[in-house]
């Protein structure tokens, strides 16, 4: 039974202008103290008036629908230009970066615009995807799973990637060699257990996972699970009483059982 986590201030960003967008959502969780007064007034009103409660529920639903809209599949592009182009378009639309085999990294600029030249490479597979900070969720992974020759996938600080998404990555087992999950707030050790399908994985980054209850022990277990993979982040000495400086700084060495 997990202790209840800090409430997601899903409605507050609508009221507080400064917390729009994905980066704003993570800031909204941190700014608890200053928003408590505003929140308690809203709570007071919502407890007493059905209209206010219905309005708040509606705003909550709208937030959820926004994320769904961002993760919709682009079926026309998939039919016309192939799965690789559709996946690349999806990632670029979300604000990430894509690298085709033999080409340079393609990224959208500050305004969200990007060139559509990559639609011409129909048979060229996508090699690497950097979706750090994007609002990709379980539905959005559909577009990524069609990229059969994906070598490296970076999902750092994605707020909606959770254990369910990790359970879905097994179709990429043949090609995926590098996976980074650093800083994802919803991933716990239970999702990491489903990574054992990815037998070709050589680098796995699991640093800064706040939902993991015991990072050091988790890292040891993940290393045992994936013997040929280098697991980064989560120093195994974390949580142990701090000893002298001779504590191993070399994170790549496997721990003998």
């Amino acid at each position: 039974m997990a202790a209840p986590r800090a409430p997601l201030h899903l409605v507050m960003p609508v009221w507080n202008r400064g917390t729009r967008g994905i980066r704003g959502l993570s800031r909204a969780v941190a700014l608890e103290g200053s928003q408590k007064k505003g929140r308690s007034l809203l709570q007071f009103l919502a407890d007493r008036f059905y209209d206010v409660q219905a309005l708040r529920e509606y705003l909550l639903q709208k937030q959820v629908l926004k994320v769904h809209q961002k993760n919709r599949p682009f079926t026309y592009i998939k039919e016309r230009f192939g799965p690789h182009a559709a996946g690349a378009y999806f990632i670029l639309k979300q604000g990430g970066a894509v690298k085709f085999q033999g080409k340079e990294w393609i990224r959208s600029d500050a305004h969200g615009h990007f060139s559509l030249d990559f639609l011409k490479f129909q048979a060229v597979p996508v090699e690497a995807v950097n979706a750090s900070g994007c609002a990709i969720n379980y539905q959005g992974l559909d577009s990524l799973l069609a990229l059969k020759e994906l070598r490296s996938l970076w999902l750092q600080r994605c707020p909606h990637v959770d254990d369910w998404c990790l359970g879905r990555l097994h179709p990429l087992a043949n090609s995926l060699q590098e996976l980074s999950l650093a800083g994802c707030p919803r991933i716990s050790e239970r999702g990491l257990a489903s990574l054992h399908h990815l037998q070709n994985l050589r680098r796995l980054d699991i640093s800064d996972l706040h939902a993991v209850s015991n990072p050091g022990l988790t890292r040891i277990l993940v290393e045992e699970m994936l013997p040929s993979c280098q697991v980064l982040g989560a120093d195994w000495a974390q949580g142990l009483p701090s000893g002298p400086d001779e504590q191993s700084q070399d994170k790549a060495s496997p721990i003998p059982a």
Partner: protein
Amino acid sequence: MLRRALQLGLGRGLLGRRLGTHRGGSTLDQNGKMSEIKKKIQSVLPGGAWNPPYDTSYLPPEHSDVVIVGGGVIGLSVAYWLKRLEKPRGAIRVLVVERDHTYSQASTALSVGGIRQQFSVPENIQLSLFSVEFLRNINEYLAVVDDPPLDIQFNPSGYLLLASEKGAAVMESNVKVQRQEGAKVCLMSPEQLRNKFPWINTEGVALASYGMEYEGWFDPWCLLQGLRRKVQSMGVLFCHGEVTRFVSSSSHTETTSGEEVTLKRIHEVHVKIDRSLEYQPVECALVINAAGAWSGQIAELAGVGKGPPGTLQGTKLPVERRKRYVYLWHCPQGPGLETPFVVDASGAYFRREGLGNNYLGGCSPTEEEEPDPGNLEVDHDFFQDKVWPPLAQRVPAFETLKVRSAWAGYYDYNTFDQNGVVGPHPLVVNMYFATGFSGHGLQQAPAVGRAVAEMVLDGHFQTINLNPFHFSRFYLGEKVQEHNII
């Protein structure tokens, strides 16, 4: 005389003029008028028209449209979907009657919490698929404004079912059905098993089926509390009491073939308050029997099964309590983090629990060894004799282990075909069943709740067709047998 009359007249006149002063006889008139005015105002204002002499807030209401007997995960799921699918909002009054608000004997709280799609009956697979989708989006379905999001701690590790030579053909056909319904299951040979899970001893295993996605285990208590919280915010009333009596009326009609049938309709449910002799008759339109392991007793109270055996009136609800043990042990050299929920061909099962090399497991006893369901005491010899040997044979690392704790829970076991009963009773027209799931009720609860709500509100199933699970199959003898009961 004139003087006296003048005095009296003057006096009254003076009295009349002195209405402004509250002295003497004028006060009496004033008070009477004030109390009359007060009474008038009170009768006009809402509320306060009847003040009971004592507090009755612990009693259920006198009228309720739907009474759900049983507040476990199935009952709460039915309440949730009724409130969610009703049109217009707030149209239906729902009352959930739960005898034990600590859920100390409820199957939900004591469950191992697994969810799988590896069934042989297609309806079971569909129910499980929808339930898993529900769990994945639980924070959208059960979101309550200003409350923290739910973390059901789902482990997406999958189920691994092992089959011996005898069961291999059945397993293959089952996997075909599962794939058709959309479950992601793959078949593995013993060689592949050894490569993937080196800690398994594949002696005696001919085939294995492994669920890749959407299978695993989660925390059922969190689901229960989440449902309870959401359902309370939607306006469902809860009552802490026990159903002791149904007051019903009968009417005789003829069927199309000329037979005489007696149809019953429940009018009132008597709810007895815990630790008291007091009861409240609740007038209701529908009763939903979601009492789990005790559904058989509730059905008997309603008159299901009172008749000559062999007729529809005489067909009882074949759901009874069966006790099942779960043991928690620690094995330092046991299987690693990737361990799925392993179900051996012999019926013994185990799964990992947490990071510390603890494992949960058990085994379903055979018919002859069924323990007495009168209490929830654990028999530790059962572990030594029936659970440990097959598991130690299957996973050699389990030869050294230490049992940390154990508990027992009830299955609402359907003795007919070990599958649920969903839908109305043919003779007691306003009693609906949602029980008898024999150990897989938790994994099907959200979908069953939706199905019952559709039946109640629309009269037929809309999304998943659960007509094969109707009560009449007990009379007609049509078994919907599930081949994978754990």
